[in-house]
């Protein structure tokens, strides 16, 4: 992705995340496993808005939300309330959504949280709230041409956590780092499976020096956010450069065309007339409750990265890359059990593997490799069996075919050449073919690299560089002496 000038850019994010590890919805006992189910099967009088039905809060949803709040450094108020957000739209059968509110005496689930980026910069998260997901709508053909709306209430009432940051991001890259950290935290807490379709959604607001605030809605995965923001910056900058003022508006991210489109919403629709939800009683979150939740918290990515540095002697950077995804961190730890050199292993997973996955747009899961593949790879290099350079060939082959690296190395003859007689005869040959280079190397020790490069090239990197270096220098010293 291209980098661009982000001067004067201010970005805020609003993230909606389903708590997918819950078995039931937020306010009713309908099952939450709606994916792949026929329409309107996971419904009950509560989530379909039958008059007289009453919501009852899911205890585990409160516990899971409290875990998230603690992991994101939030303050948890001692008492929280639910509010009704009123609007007429068929995605909520009741004509209101039960959510939380930070005005009119409302108390959200948590306030004043933050995530610290690797640069040390703190991104403030103003509030977090619990709310219910609306139903899924579909249409005959496109949304514009359809004469009807088809409603599936299976998703209605699913637990959502809404996380709203302050406009603290100064570039799309910072927003991406924040979302990477957030998703790793959610994965480590095991409260949400972000790989499930529709489990996370993101809205972004973005303004640039001298322009108004533009909201971009409907970004359906964390990966798309940076792309949408980059598009929006380019669009706003090109308007400004033409002397057109950026208007305050709401735009929609079109994932397929990769552009934002103006929604032209009527201002009238923004009046939600929030008021307290009288069908739900207040919830107290006592110090004891918060303490208990804290005690039950699993290891968080930041702690894990520190442990990786300490226990496996990884660099801070490598450790950070590994904990960015829980699956990768787990994979590393599993592989480390079979490896004598965790540092070597860490570098294959954090550097070489990531480069490959980025290039081919694949995930580790898709490769169908076991931790043992990578452990064997690292062991081959750290024992000196294969040089780091030659091992790269086996590595790529391993990723492509799923074969074990040692068998690839044997088949391709990648093993380090330890026969010094062979290396010496090779040096003879290279010295006689490159007399000028030999003369240069005799005068300037730096010029020896050309000769070493020739040896590596002739052997596809299979000679131990230290051995080649020693033998070449010995030969040069002998040549100098005989002169």
């Amino acid at each position, binding site marked *: 992705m291209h980098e661009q000038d982000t001067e004067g850019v201010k970005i805020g994010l609003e993230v909606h995340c389903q708590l997918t590890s819950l*078995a039931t919805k937020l306010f009713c006992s309908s099952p939450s496993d709606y994916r792949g189910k026929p*329409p309107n099967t996971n419904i009950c009088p509560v989530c*379909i808005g039958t008059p007289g039905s009453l919501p009852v809060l899911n205890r585990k*949803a409160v516990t899971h939300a409290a875990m998230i709040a603690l992991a994101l450094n939030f303050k948890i108020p001692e*008492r929280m*309330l639910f509010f009704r957000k009123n609007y007429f739209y*068929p995605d909520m059968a009741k004509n209101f959504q039960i959510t939380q509110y930070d005005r009119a005496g409302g108390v959200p689930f948590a306030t004043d949280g933050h995530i610290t980026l690797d640069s040390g910069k703190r991104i403030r998260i103003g509030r977090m709230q619990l709310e219910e997901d609306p139903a899924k709508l579909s249409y005959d053909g496109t949304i514009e041409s359809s004469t*009807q709306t*088809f409603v599936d209430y299976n998703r209605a009432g699913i637990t959502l956590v809404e996380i709203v940051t302050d406009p603290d991001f100064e570039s799309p890259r910072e927003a991406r780092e924040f979302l990477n950290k957030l998703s790793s935290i959610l994965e480590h807490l095991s409260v949400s499976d972000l790989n499930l379709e529709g489990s996370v959604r993101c809205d972004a607001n973005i303004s640039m020096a001298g322009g108004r605030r533009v909201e971009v809605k409907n970004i359906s995965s964390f990966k798309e956010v940076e792309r949408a923001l980059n598009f929006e910056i380019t669009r706003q900058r090109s308007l400004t450069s033409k002397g057109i003022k950026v208007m305050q508006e709401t735009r929609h991210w079109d994932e397929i065309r990769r552009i934002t489109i103006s929604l032209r919403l009527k201002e009238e629709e923004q009046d939600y007339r929030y008021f307290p939800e009288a069908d739900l009683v207040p*919830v107290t979150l006592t110090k004891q409750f918060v303490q208990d939740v804290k005690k039950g918290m699993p290891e968080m990515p930041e702690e894990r990265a520190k442990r990786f540095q300490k226990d496996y002697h990884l660099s801070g950077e490598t450790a950070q890359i590994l904990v960015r995804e829980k699956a990768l961190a787990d994979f590393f730890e599993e592989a480390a059990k079979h490896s004598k050199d965790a540092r070597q292993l860490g570098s294959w997973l954090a550097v070489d593997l990531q480069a490959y996955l980025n290039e081919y747009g694949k995930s580790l899961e898709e490769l169908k490799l076991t931790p043992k593949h990578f452990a064997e790879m690292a062991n081959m290099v750290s024992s000196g069996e294969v040089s780091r350079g030659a091992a790269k060939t086996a590595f790529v082959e391993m990723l492509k075919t799923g074969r074990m690296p040692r068998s690839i190395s044997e088949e391709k003859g990648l093993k380090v050449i330890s026969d010094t007689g062979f290396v010496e005869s090779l040096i003879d040959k290279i010295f006689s073919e490159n007399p000028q280079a030999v003369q240069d190397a005799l005068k300037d020790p730096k010029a020896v690299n050309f000769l070493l490069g020739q040896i590596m090239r002739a052997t596809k990197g299979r000679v131990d560089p230290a051995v080649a270096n020693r033998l070449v220098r010995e030969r040069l010293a002998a040549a100098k002496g005989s002169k």
Partner: protein
Amino acid sequence: MTKKQRQEQFISEKEVEHLAELAKLELSKKEFTKLRGELNEILGYFRLIDEVDTENVSPTYHVQDIVNVLRDDTPTPQQPDMLLEDAPQKKDRFIKAPKMI
């Protein structure tokens, strides 16, 4: 309610228009006048509450003095087909709603 209160206008024409818009209601001139009159009476009645001194009273968000009514995260069997029978319009298992945009 005194005669004076009844004549006072607690809700403007513009506010009624706004409410109708939010409720997606298209009102005839006659309905509009009738509704405004009724809303006015209701609001006038609620004005009585304004007379109570609430200076030192903390806000109440729930009329009952109970907190923490929670349930376990255990699914219970539902009867979706029975609920679907009550839907005014359906297509297959979808509930049909009017076009919204």
